[in-house]
């Protein structure tokens, strides 16, 4: 079978952005925007979700017992000092040699490490900053450690924790396009092909799509934060303005 070459690779250099963007062929088919968008969204959602499932419990428990305040924060922040692209690029040969291919592990691990940072830091702060009076009151009512953590600290910190996940998700969406430079596809393909083919329309298209997805991701989390928070906590959050994310 003839290779289903993406239409985008044949985009003429002098095509206008709107002409390109509103052409149905730009969106459908192999390598079209819809396929690229699905690729990107799936990977970003997976990386953020796994990072949240990993970082929130660890940070919550450590913060509850006031353990590793400096070391863990420092270690987690330090991981951000290594560029995500460098991590992914280092992992690619490793993955290839194991026969796991370009995707998904190298880019997934790199995005996971990126997402862990804000989620961990926000969760830690959220739990630690829960007013001591609330915790004391809960203990006086006979709450055990796990109940204090789960029903008091976690509920009251939910807003900040979700804000951390939101920041992580936006960063992941904005960073995921590096995968196109490491043997993958996704929305980054437009930036990559645009640079490679000296086609400004494609680069601009990639930026618009990636930026748009990041903006939508942020909006979704705002709604999610409203849905998830119990009414009482929402009222409390509104009360303590400075805790508003």
């Amino acid at each position: 079978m003839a290779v289903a070459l993406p239409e985008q690779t044949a985009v003429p250099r002098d095509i206008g952005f709107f002409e390109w963007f509103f052409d149905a062929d730009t969106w459908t088919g192999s390598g079209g925007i819809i396929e690229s968008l699905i690729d990107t969204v799936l990977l970003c959602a997976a990386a953020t979700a796994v990072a949240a499932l990993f970082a929130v419990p660890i940070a919550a428990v450590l913060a509850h017992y006031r353990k590793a305040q400096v070391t863990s924060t420092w270690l987690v922040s330090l991981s951000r000092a290594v560029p995500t692209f460098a991590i992914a690029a280092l992992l690619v040969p490793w993955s290839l040699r194991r026969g796991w291919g370009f995707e998904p592990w190298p880019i997934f691990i790199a995005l996971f490490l990126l997402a862990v940072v804000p989620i961990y830091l926000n969760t830690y702060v959220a739990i630690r900053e829960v007013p001591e009076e609330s915790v004391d009151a809960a203990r006086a009512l006979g709450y055990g450690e796990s109940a204090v953590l789960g029903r008091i600290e976690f509920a009251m910190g939910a807003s900040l924790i979700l804000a951390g996940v939101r920041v992580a998700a936006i960063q992941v969406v904005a960073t995921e396009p590096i995968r196109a430079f490491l043997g993958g596809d996704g929305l980054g393909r437009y930036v990559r092909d645009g640079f490679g083919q000296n086609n400004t329309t494609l680069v601009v298209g990639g930026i618009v799509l990636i930026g748009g997805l990041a903006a939508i991701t942020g909006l979704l989390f705002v709604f999610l934060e409203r849905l998830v928070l119990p009414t009482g906590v929402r009222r409390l959050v509104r009360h303590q303005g400075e805790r508003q994310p």
Partner: protein
Amino acid sequence: MTTHSKRRTVAKLLAPLVVFGLVAAACGSDDDSGDSGAESGSDTTEASGSESTGTEATDAPAPDGPTIRLRGQDFSEAITIAEVYGQYLEAKGYDVDILTPAGFRTEAIDGLTNGDLDLIVDYIGGSQAALAPDAPPSADPDEIVAVIGPAYDEIGATLLDYSPAVDGDAFVVRGDSEATTISDVAGLDYVLGASSQCPERPQCLIGLEDPEIYGITFADFVTLEFGPLLGEALASNEVDAVIWNTTAPQITEQGFKVLEDDQGLFPAQNIAPIITTEVLGAYGDQLAADLDALSAMITTDDLLAWNTQTDIELRESDAVATEWLQSKGLL
């Protein structure tokens, strides 16, 4: 108590910043040493230049003319080539300024056009793609020269004789592939990996799939950044063929083989110096003769050897260039 612990926390949080600052400073000083290296390089060649004027076979007097500003494109082979031409001219007594390598072909040709550079060395097929993209590519270097010679004239530059050294496109497969020519690939259902330019270039994917040239149908196409990643992808069976360049040292290093371009799809990519007509005129025929003599001595094997030294053995381009020039008795 709390302020104290907070202060400690702040100090510990700042620690990575300090470390980062030190690293950045170290990187900065590295750059500095690179610059001073180039300066000291020109110092030493001044000395050797005065020496060589006496020993030159042609007995020509020290050439007198403007400074020749030369800049390599920013990848190791081009950097070494620039060092070879630059150090060679310095040894001949010319006033040469080897600038820090930057950019690629576009920046090199722009530099010639707007007077920032006097001498560049480029691959002729690449030059044609940049200067006359609509002209049909050719595997015959003389046909390409016929196109780009006049094109360089138009921007006030002169194309000198091309070298027998070629760094062209290479269709690379694993060593155990049954194919020996690119035509053999037609029935093999290969996955091709190449840069993002490939799908839109007639000398690449378009020509490979064109029924009138190769007519290959690939099982898939993977966009891969040019460089060692191509070899990794090939070695791990992620792709079955990649478009690389003939002088990539990893090809022999990793046991790959280059298939014969039996249909002559890939354009000739001999290296050739291009110099501004103004500077060339100022020095007269001697400069052109000197450059042509050097170009004639460089071979494809030399390019491969230089790349092996810079990319595999991780040696500095200027040292590799000096050593080669000495081995040829040119320094």
